């Protein structure tokens, strides 16, 4: 493995060395240090609303089961039989009464407790089943967004996220009149031949859209007359912020119409009824905050983003292979037409045949090709660096086309990658 010092020298305040996207040893170190030693996003509780509902997920390279147990608690269990390590959950999703190892029949409850060992008379008296439950990752959530870490000594989730990120998650959850999100509308599952950080940087990149997504913007203009390129020029009033710890967000409210964030184009009467129910539930002041916030993107270090109506989970597979899941959220208690519109709007742009995101995947693959040219091995993250503004609340803000998020993300990357490795 490359030493921590070698790695941190690859990131400078305003540029990053191409090997961070290419190198096998760096990739393995990322999984060790970023994914398997600190908080990562696992899923949303609204994906598994009923006891027994589960999803297969990953913490770095390690398989986990994201499951709701008999008592309704959400758990993150290591997907490894305590006997001889078979994966006890072998489907991507479903509903189960428990998990039975297919190899020798060891049976676990939904909370991970070992319920039965076949032919137990061949074990000695001191053999203690209570110590052989499925191992649990440490997990915590905020507004149903569940994170986990394999590191018992890690900071609390609240400290990892910080107040600004938690407020962003509150704003997303409060788009529901019941303050609750559901994630039972399926997932777009994507793969591309490029490094995982290319997707990370892209999701919070305000500079690319007028070029990478020109074909979609041309469609919108032809259909509605609205020129979406205004959002992403250097004259745009939209902003981007470094929320600390590598987390970043956009705010396009200065440009986009009130309510854009509901990501629904249901009829005016339906939207009004929806807003009325929001006001009844949360009060006018809160609703003004939530709906007045336009078209926000949120990135939470290292593997989560929220865009439009969906959240994403980034899963590194190899230096040049990444899987991404896009999980649309529906708003509990909102009119069905609002939720239906969120799904239809999502499909137009996202997914393997969508009019926008497929072009991003193409860009990532070309990016990976370009990175191999090593005569000038640095990628430039200079844009807007001399214009960053520190706010009183500790966040740092810039104009939407600035590379402020890239700098914040790689600052966090270098910091985590340079941490001493425990023996």
């Amino acid at each position, binding site marked *: 493995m490359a030493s921590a010092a070698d790695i941190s020298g690859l990131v400078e305040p305003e540029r990053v060395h191409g090997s961070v996207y290419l190198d096998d040893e760096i990739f393995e170190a990322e999984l060790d240090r970023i994914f398997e030693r600190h908080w990562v996003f696992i899923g949303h509780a609204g994906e598994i609303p009923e006891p027994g509902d589960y999803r297969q997920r990953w913490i770095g390279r390690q398989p986990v089961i994201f499951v709701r147990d008999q008592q309704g608690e959400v758990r993150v269990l290591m997907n490894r039989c305590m006997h001889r390590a078979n994966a006890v959950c072998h489907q991507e999703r479903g509903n189960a009464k428990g998990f039975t190892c297919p190899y020798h029949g060891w049976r676990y409850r939904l909370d991970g407790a070992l319920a039965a060992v076949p032919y137990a008379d061949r074990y000695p008296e001191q053999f203690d089943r209570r110590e052989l439950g499925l191992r649990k990752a440490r997990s915590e959530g905020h507004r149903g967004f569940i994170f986990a870490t394999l590191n018992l000594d890690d900071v609390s989730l609240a400290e990892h996220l910080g107040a600004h990120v938690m407020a962003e998650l509150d704003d997303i959850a409060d788009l529901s009149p019941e303050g609750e999100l559901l994630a039972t509308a399926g997932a*777009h599952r994507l793969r*591309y031949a490029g490094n995982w950080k290319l997707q990370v940087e892209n999701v919070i990149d305000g500079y690319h859209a007028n070029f990478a997504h020109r074909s979609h913007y041309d469609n919108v203009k032809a259909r509605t007359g609205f020129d979406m390129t205004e959002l992403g020029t250097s004259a745009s009033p939209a902003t981007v912020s470094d929320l600390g710890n590598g987390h970043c967000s956009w705010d396009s409210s200065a440009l986009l119409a009130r309510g854009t964030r509901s990501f629904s184009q249901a009829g005016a009467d339906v939207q009004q009824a929806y807003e009325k129910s929001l006001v009844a539930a949360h009060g006018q002041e809160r609703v003004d905050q939530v709906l007045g916030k336009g078209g926000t993107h949120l990135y939470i270090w290292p593997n989560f983003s929220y865009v439009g109506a969906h959240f994403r989970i980034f899963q590194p597979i190899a230096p040049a292979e990444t899987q991404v899941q896009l999980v649309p959220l529906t708003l509990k208690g909102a009119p069905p037409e609002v939720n239906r519109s969120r*799904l*239809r709007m999502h*499909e*137009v742009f996202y*997914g393997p045949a969508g009019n926008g995101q497929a072009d991003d*995947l193409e860009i990532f693959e070309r990016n990976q090709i370009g990175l191999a040219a090593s005569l000038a091995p640095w990628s430039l993250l200079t844009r807007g660096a001399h214009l960053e503004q520190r706010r009183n609340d500790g966040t740092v803000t810039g104009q939407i086309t600035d590379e402020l998020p890239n700098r914040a993300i790689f600052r966090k990357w270098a910091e985590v990658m340079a941490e001493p490795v425990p023996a």
Partner: protein
Amino acid sequence: MSALREKVADFLFEEAARADAHDYAGWLELWAEECLYWIPCNDDDIDPETHISIVYETRVGLQDRVRRLGGGYAHSQLPPHRLSRVIGNIRVSEIEEGLVEARSTFNLTAFRRDRFEIFAGRMVHRLRPEGDDFRIVRKIVYLVNNDGYMSNMTFLM
């Protein structure tokens, strides 16, 4: 082979040829004014009202899709995939309101940037006879890998 089945097969082969050739305008001509193009996501029997699809488009969506692909800035089709699809196992039945339903399977080989990909699945076309020809009222594509990790599928399926 019945005369109807032969006519329907010819129509499906023509649609396949236009899609393989990226003949966007020619492909769009095959669709009725009121139409639905649907590729379910994650499973075959999802409810599109409450579940996302890979594609769920009426004519407006199809027009946008085709305008984008032909507009010169759809990076995911620059260059376009080389495509070759085989349509088979065609079964035809006459259903309500004079419509014809065609069930078929397909196998599509796509090649781009030194990478082969295979797409396969079932299709259900609902066709409205128009003189000697048909128009597509509804087309559903059930991909065998609709729950798998997928990459660029922006060509005409």
